[in-house]
């Protein structure tokens, strides 16, 4: 096929794909590689894509590069888990530690729009106290951000994505009502509700980034249930179909299939641009500022791979913390069987949630919190849980899989502690570009294990109360990636400041989930986008004061 976006870039010759129209194009401004743009942004996901939009709208010249293809969901997405693996970052990475992580489909996207092309759309605000976890709750570290400021940016993102959610959210300080009405809760979500009500805790329809009513050329969600393999109707409000069309309209250039291998610097130590591979050869884009937004594995990998005689430990790494404090979130589950048919494949996978244990500090033998949500695993994912996790094969696997439409589960997004030993380093092996690949090392600490045990015991009660039987624990799963370039107030103990600006190199910025000092017990995408909006405002303010 001549128009295979996995092999040939689409954003070329003054145009980029119109992601909302089959076969469509929109005009795209282009910059010369020798033209030092205001910002070269590496990565177009929740961090980089959002920031590219906001900076372009503020009048900065922006080139945003992504290693992944530029999809038109209406043209390119099939209703098939196997085929849609094309959305994931499947280049080799090595995993080790006591609890080796699952990457790829689990948490790593390779697409223009990043992981939001395949995320489950769960859009939650942090609990305010998490921004001061050390001072207020006694664990982890404080963020250099104030929750009240973040509350304004959360509202901006929720409106930009037209989040569908309840009129009143049961937890946390007041917030505006969600822009679109909540989605109907499916049977799997109603099981969560029944369990919560039996145990006397609050629950809510989950605020989701998929529209419940028409929005421009996005139709309302049709409950196809294949959100995590890419939405084929554009109901999902991913970065690909929200921030990036705005970015193009405001004059940003997006380069797809552009793998950045190195950030270069001059003799003074300031960065000068990015060396990247596209259309068969290495190229160089000059830039006055570089933003690294490749998420918690590719971001430290790029900074470490950019080591030079001046920066032998990699860029922005005088603290020694680049790659360290990698955090995932606990993603353990309890599963059971209901007499009633559930058919959890219908609708977005997590339509109901409780944040009870995020906002309750008593009755815990651990620091941090967790949310838990209803689940709707598709057959490939579910068969992986039943086989690799539960150890079933042969007729017992076939028989258990036949009960697919009666299975029901509750799954946490749980806060795990930052630990320096959990980290991204460079391995000896190299990838198809000749770049050293990542080694990702992860082990739970005792607090993590206590949180997990607490959640499994509680969810088991909830599932039992809802009438499920044959309940079993899925003990080995994690989700999301955060940390590896944390923000802070002190250059000795952090990589970037509150503005996502690196302490070491004033024109090098990091803007993605890497900057999280702690993770909280909610999915990170809304917070990443809120931080990107704040960073854009700070850059605008600094530029106005001539402090860039």
């Amino acid at each position, binding site marked *: 096929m001549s128009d295979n976006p996995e092999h040939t870039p689409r954003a070329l010759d003054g145009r980029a794909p119109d992601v909302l129209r089959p076969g469509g194009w929109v005009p795209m401004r282009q910059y010369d590689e020798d033209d030092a743009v205001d910002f070269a942004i590496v990565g177009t996901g929740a961090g980089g894509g959002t920031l590219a939009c906001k900076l372009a709208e503020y009048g900065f010249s922006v080139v945003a590069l992504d290693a992944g293809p530029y999809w038109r969901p209406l043209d390119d997405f099939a209703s098939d888990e196997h085929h849609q693996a094309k959305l994931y970052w*499947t280049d080799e990475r090595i995993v080790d530690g006591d609890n*080796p992580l699952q990457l790829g489909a689990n948490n790593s996207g390779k697409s223009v729009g990043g992981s939001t092309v395949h995320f489950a759309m769960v859009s939650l605000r942090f609990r305010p106290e998490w921004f001061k976890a050390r001072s207020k709750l006694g664990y982890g570290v404080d963020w250099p951000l104030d929750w009240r400021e973040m509350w304004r940016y959360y509202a901006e993102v929720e409106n930009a994505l037209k989040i569908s959610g309840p009129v009143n959210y049961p937890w946390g300080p007041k917030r505006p009502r969600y822009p679109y009405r909540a989605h109907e809760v499916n049977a799997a979500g109603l099981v969560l509700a029944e369990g919560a009500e039996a145990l006397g805790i609050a629950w809510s329809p989950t605020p989701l980034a998929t529209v419940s009513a028409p929005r421009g050329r996005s139709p309302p969600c049709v409950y196809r249930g294949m959100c995590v393999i890419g939405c084929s109707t554009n109901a999902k409000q991913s970065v690909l179909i929200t921030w990036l069309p705005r970015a193009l309209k405001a004059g940003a250039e997006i380069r797809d299939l552009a793998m950045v291998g190195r950030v270069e610097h001059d003799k003074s130590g300031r960065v000068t641009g990015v060396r990247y591979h596209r259309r068969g050869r290495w190229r160089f884009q000059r830039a006055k500022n570089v933003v690294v937004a490749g998420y918690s594995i590719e971001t430290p990998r790029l900074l470490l791979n950019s080591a030079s005689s001046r920066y032998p430990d990699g860029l922005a790494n005088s603290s020694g913390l680049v790659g360290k404090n990698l955090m995932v979130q606990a993603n353990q589950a309890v599963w059971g069987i209901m007499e*009633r048919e559930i058919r959890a494949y219908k609708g977005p996978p997590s339509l109901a949630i409780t944040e009870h244990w995020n906002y309750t500090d008593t009755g815990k033998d651990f620091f941090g919190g967790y949310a838990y949500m209803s689940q709707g695993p598709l057959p490939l994912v579910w068969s*992986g849980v039943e086989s690799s996790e539960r150890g079933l094969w*042969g007729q017992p696997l076939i028989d258990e899989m036949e009960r697919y439409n009666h299975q029901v589960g509750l799954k946490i997004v749980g806060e795990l502690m930052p630990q320096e030993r959990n980290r991204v380093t460079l391995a000896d092996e190299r990838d198809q570009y000749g770049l050293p690949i990542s080694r990702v090392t992860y082990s739970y600490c005792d607090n993590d294990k206590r949180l997990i045990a607490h959640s499994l015991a509680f969810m088991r009660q909830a599932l039992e109360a809802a009438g499920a039987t044959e309940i079993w624990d899925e003990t080995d799963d994690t989700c999301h990636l955060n940390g590896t370039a944390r923000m802070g107030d002190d250059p000795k103990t952090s990589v970037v400041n509150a503005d996502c600006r690196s302490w070491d190199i004033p024109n090098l910025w990091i803007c993605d989930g890497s900057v999280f000092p702690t993770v909280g017990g909610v999915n990170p995408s809304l917070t990443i986008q809120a931080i990107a909006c704040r960073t854009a405002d700070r850059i605008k303010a600094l530029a106005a004061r001539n402090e860039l």
Partner: protein
Amino acid sequence: MPDRYPGYDVLQKRNSPSWNDQTRAVIDRRMAIDPDHHGFFTDAEWPTLRAICERIVPQPPDRAQRAPVAAMVDEKMHKNSGDGYRDARLPPMREAWQRALAAIDAEATSRYGRRFHEIGALLQDDLLKAIQNGEVDEKAWDDLPAKVFFKMRLLHDIVSSYYAHPAAWSEIGFGGPASPRGYVRMYFDRRDPWEAAEARSGNEGRARAENARVG
């Protein structure tokens, strides 16, 4: 065991509003896979892999169109399409499979005097259980950790191939492709007319009739 979803065939929906052209193209390619084709595994390795697949995801002998599981695993190896991570205890995917198949045959030969595909289902299951538990002859496996391979590669690659096939979707009553039509009925015990009807005691005939109308 009787069919839970008698007469349900997800492929009946191929020309319905639950499938679009993109999905038809993808699934047509999968349905056309030659079950005997192996572009990566050698002729010597092939019967071993096929026998393992038969035991991991057994299919009814009378099934009209069987999922070509071994050929799908072969295609994954041929394309070298990895999952995006590799346990540090394992070598790269292709090497892991080649070494493991040799080790499994070596185990079968040393235990039973015949190759894996020649020892029959009961002994095959015994041997697979031993591998799953890491109770293996270390000489055959060298430094390849059998238990890790079984979980991370053998089960993962075989099971994910089977459940990517429409025959498996029909077996479990999954709705299958669903774009653009999606679903309407989200409540307990509710099915759209284009979803599988489950047989419960006494209503097998009715479920079969409903499933004949799915489309």
